[in-house]
């Protein structure tokens, strides 16, 4: 055990008693560093999770560019663009929430996260509306899939990739909103302080990552052709 000064030892006990500090860390700063590193490693694996689907997309689009362009015409361009703006704005409020947490402004933290959650739910609602539109238009790659143009097989492949990419992204959004709900719950109880708020920081990192995934999905799926509905 490294030498701990009297003052540090006191704050160690205090922090453990407040359930902020886990006992196997020397202090809150070390714990925050470790948890942040863990989050970044997790996010690197998440990049690979989406990476497999993105690589599949790159290979198929390279092989069948015309079919992908024709498929992209059926995307709801306005909905996709609006959703991009919504997610970027939600990310802004999450960043502001972390800023508030670092300064110990608890009320601002709760409100900024609540706004982000609301925007996240708006995103999911618009995404749901888009899915409904694809369903009505028979663009869901099942037996009911209908395609009037040439190369129906590979246009359907575009929709397979579309539903997997946006579907897994939407699941990440649902998880993100749920995590923010938990953070809001504990923030309202006054759990977070300028010294201890690494759950807020990690939730924010996750949220920004999901935002980045969408930043790439938007041009990949909505901006393939030059004619938008």
């Amino acid at each position, binding site marked *: 055990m490294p030498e701990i000064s009297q003052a540090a030892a006191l704050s160690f006990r205090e922090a453990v008693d407040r359930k902020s500090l886990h006992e196997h860390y020397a202090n809150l700063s070390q714990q925050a560093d470790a948890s942040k590193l863990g989050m970044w490693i997790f996010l690197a694996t998440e990049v690979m999770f989406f990476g497999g689907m993105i690589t599949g997309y790159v290979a198929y689009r390279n092989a069948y560019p015309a079919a992908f362009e024709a498929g992209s015409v059926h995307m709801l361009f306005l909905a996709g663009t609006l959703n991009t*703006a919504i997610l970027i704005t939600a990310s802004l409020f999450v960043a502001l929430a972390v800023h508030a947490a670092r300064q110990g402004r608890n009320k601002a933290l709760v409100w900024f996260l609540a706004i982000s959650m609301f925007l996240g739910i708006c995103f999911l609602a618009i995404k749901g509306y888009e899915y409904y539109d694809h369903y009505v238009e028979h663009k869901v790659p099942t037996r009911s899939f209908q395609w009037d143009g040439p190369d129906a097989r590979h246009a359907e492949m575009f929709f397979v990739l579309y539903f997997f990419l946006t579907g897994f992204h939407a699941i990440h959004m649902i998880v993100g909103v749920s995590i923010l709900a938990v953070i809001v719950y504990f923030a309202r109880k006054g759990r977070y302080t300028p010294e201890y708020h690494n759950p807020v920081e990690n939730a924010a990192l996750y949220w*920004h990552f999901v935002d980045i995934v969408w930043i790439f999905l938007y041009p990949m799926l909505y901006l393939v052709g030059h004619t938008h509905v």
Partner: protein
Amino acid sequence: MSAKAAGTKTYVLIWAVLMCLTGLTAGVSFIDLHRWSTVVAFLIATAKAGLVVTFFMHLWYEKEKTIWIWAVVAAVWLTLLITLTMGDYLTRGVIRVPGK
């Protein structure tokens, strides 16, 4: 721990730039730049992702080298995956395989 960090002004400024880039990429998509359309869309998306990682995720203010390593590693892994896969698909007609 990150000693210095961005303030509200920086965050709002980055948000404004991100919104402008979103408008730009949406607008440019209406113009047919042939093969360059994809390149432009990809470059704008990368710039936006870079801004989010650098400022919203605080990488700019990060002193811990291990965090930097993981951020870079994530990008390197993805690049490797796509490059090696496409290296195969793009050269199938070019490189002769003996016996095929």
